[in-house]
């Protein structure tokens, strides 16, 4: 059974991603499902990443980490963070089946990013539940 998002929902999600994340300095943000499908992607116009491969790897990675969580008695680890020299990756689960991937540089602090991701997550949940 497949699923669809309406144009209105997608516009609202993209607006939330742009306003909350890209406009504050995030380089690229991708919303995917746990099967690795890309639902929405926005960037600052300067980055050029292979979003589809990233989505497949992120979904697999998140699934593997969830399986690890269960082995150590946790339901899940709902967020992941990878730090690089230039770019950092932040993954945050939204509801049961979505994952928000944020790519950002060192000019943005992790604490501030987490705050903005939490706000965005709430907005997306509201959009999808309304």
């Amino acid at each position, binding site marked *: 059974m497949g*699923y*669809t998002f309406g144009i209105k929902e997608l516009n609202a999600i993209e607006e939330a991603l742009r306003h909350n994340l890209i406009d504050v300095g995030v380089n690229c943000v991708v919303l995917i499902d746990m099967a690795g*499908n890309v639902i929405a992607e926005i960037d600052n116009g300067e980055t050029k990443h292979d979003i589809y491969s990233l989505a497949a790897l992120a979904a697999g990675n998140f*699934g593997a980490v969830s*399986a690890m969580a269960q082995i150590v008695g946790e339901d899940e680890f709902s967020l992941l963070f990878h730090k690089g020299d230039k770019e950092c990756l932040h993954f945050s689960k939204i509801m049961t089946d979505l994952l928000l991937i944020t790519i950002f540089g060192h000019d943005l602090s992790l604490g501030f990013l987490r705050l903005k991701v939490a706000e965005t997550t709430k907005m997306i949940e509201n959009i999808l539940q309304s």
Partner: protein
Amino acid sequence: MPFIDLKKRVAQVKIVYYGPGRGGKTTNLEYIYSKFSDRMQTEMVSIKTQGDRTLFFDFLPVDMGKIAGFDVRVQLYTVPGQVKYNATRKVVLRGVDGLVFVADSLEATRKKNILSLKNLHENLASYDISIFDIPLVLQYNKRDLAQQGIPLLSVETLEKDLNSNLKVPSFEASALVGTNVVATLKKIITMTMASIESQLK
């Protein structure tokens, strides 16, 4: 489950190559990549061990053009075939829309084929998917080895072992040479698209 983007009119479909270890799943994708790389925007992604065995999965996105007014992007995945990697096989199966089961025709791997198909059945059931409902194609790989005098299972034996209940389309193939690799792919894409077509209307 496919994701259908009504805004950009794009449908994303996930097809997984399953089967016993060293059966030729990755070789299928490598052949497809070598054949159609000019049509692909990205490179094939492989997560392998040092010994060149698939550790997690291979990933290859293929643009199929327009179907019912939607740009269709088929995402091909393989799973690691080795028995010990079942947790990662389950992760890769999440959201699957269509399956190719790559069976190894070598006589010595008869039992491994049967166990791998049983494992697929169980892993699909953990996602509430019946192996009888999902689009599935069987591929009997390594048929070219018969020319070198290597003992192979007969197609009748493979059909009896693997397809007597499923009764799905099957292909004799050689992933290394390329025989019926594209035919297998075309068949599973056709079957998968037919199963989601009603959702595109």
